[in-house]
């Protein structure tokens, strides 16, 4: 305590005047050294304002420019994570093979493009006529997330199937017990020159085993697609009265490894697997298919219970040989599809 008192005593060596003088001189020195004119003050404020404005503009611009990349990234993530994009492509692929007689596509050439939360796929569609695959058009499907729009088909066919099936008479294949029989095209087949190959939709007079039916076909002809009996083809309508269309599968093995009907297993087995897959995604498949109802579960259960029996088929080959179908008891009627110049070697 005594030492502290001594220290205070030492500090008190300056008088009150000296203190005042020192403080005044310090204030003057401060005013000289740190004097800022009004002009300078205005400049400082202006610089601050400009800095703040520049920062706000740049940060706002950055945030705005991040919107599209982030949404694009989210779109890609949606279709990539969990394989959603691949699943939608697979649905379109299998729906085409199963619901469109004698139509195929090249899986490796399916093109896809992405918008914001949407995916477009488009691909060329082929038909086998005679001994060659012909490109008959292309199909374009827009998916908003996982919901497809109706596909846009550009098919260049001489005798296309109706795009929106509404009348059974317009369909090319009919069940042996069907009351309505589409008119037969024997006259057209006879009128075609011998130097052509044709695609013929054959309606059978009874349900057949596909292998047995193939054995009865004329030489140089090929069974390309078979329409499978699913218990609904007699009336061709579902429980709500909507028209259904045939379902079936390509009979020949597809050499393309990426096709759902490649040589890994017999096509009939791959057909049932494809039906099981489409059953889980029926809503999407119905939107893509021509028919507005597919009743896949009901038809799949029937096939599993009764086995694969066909009531119709698509046969292709030289027109001359196809005329022999008329003499076959198994054949009830035919419809001529596409015709091309001779392409057998």
């Amino acid at each position, binding site marked *: 305590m005594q030492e502290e008192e001594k220290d205070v005593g030492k500090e008190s060596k300056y008088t009150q005047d000296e203190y005042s003088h020192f403080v005044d001189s310090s204030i003057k020195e401060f005013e000289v*050294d740190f004097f800022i004119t009004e002009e300078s003050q205005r400049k400082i404020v202006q610089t601050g304002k400009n*800095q703040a404005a520049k*920062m706000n503009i740049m940060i706002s611009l*950055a945030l705005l420019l*991040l919107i*599209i*990349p982030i949404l694009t990234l989210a779109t890609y993530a949606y279709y*990539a994570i969990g394989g959603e994009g*691949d699943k939608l492509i697979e649905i379109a692929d299998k729906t085409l093979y199963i619901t469109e007689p004698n139509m195929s596509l090249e899986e*490796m050439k399916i093109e896809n493009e992405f918008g914001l939360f949407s995916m477009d796929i488009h691909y060329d569609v082929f038909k086998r006529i005679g001994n060659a695959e012909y490109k008959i058009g292309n199909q374009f499907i827009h998916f908003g997330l996982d919901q497809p729009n109706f596909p846009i088909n550009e098919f260049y066919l001489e005798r296309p199937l109706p795009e929106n099936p509404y009348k059974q008479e317009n369909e090319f294949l009919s069940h042996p017990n069907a009351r309505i029989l589409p008119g037969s095209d024997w006259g057209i087949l006879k009128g075609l020159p011998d130097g052509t190959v044709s695609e013929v939709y054959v309606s059978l007079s009874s349900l057949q085993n596909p292998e047995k039916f193939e054995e009865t076909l004329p030489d140089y002809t090929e069974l390309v697609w078979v329409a499978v009996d699913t218990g609904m083809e007699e009336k061709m309508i579902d429980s709500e009265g909507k028209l259904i269309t045939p379902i079936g599968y390509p009979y020949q093995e597809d050499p393309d490894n990426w096709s759902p009907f490649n040589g890994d297993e017999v096509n009939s087995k791959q057909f049932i697997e494809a039906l099981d897959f489409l059953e889980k995604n029926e809503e999407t498949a119905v939107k893509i298919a021509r028919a507005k109802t597919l009743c896949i579960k009901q038809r799949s259960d029937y096939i599993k219970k009764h086995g694969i029996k066909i009531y119709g088929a698509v046969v292709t080959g030289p027109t001359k040989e196809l005329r022999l179908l008329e003499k076959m008891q198994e054949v009830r009627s035919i419809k001529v599809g596409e015709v091309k110049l001779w392409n057998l070697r």
Partner: protein
Amino acid sequence: MEFTMKSKKTKNRLQTFTGYLSFLIALIALIFLNAGLLLKTEQMPNFFIIELPQIGLMLGIIGIFSRNRSRLFAIWGIALHLFIFLFIFLMIIFGLSINPKP
């Protein structure tokens, strides 16, 4: 007791020049990235979305080590450049995993 005027070291709030440049380059790269996405073109020059962000990232890193200056722009620049690289990387990964072709 002595009175002395100590000049107080005030922190200069001006942005670092390199940080500012980094942020500006990030904005330019983002504009080109947006244009490429909106136009759906694959012809976008790599310079604007790969090489330029690399330069910008380096400038941002230099900016963040600057003393006595605000590092806000440098941080924004670095973050945006990293986003651009992450975006390109993820787009490649996602693009390859959807409808893969050998």
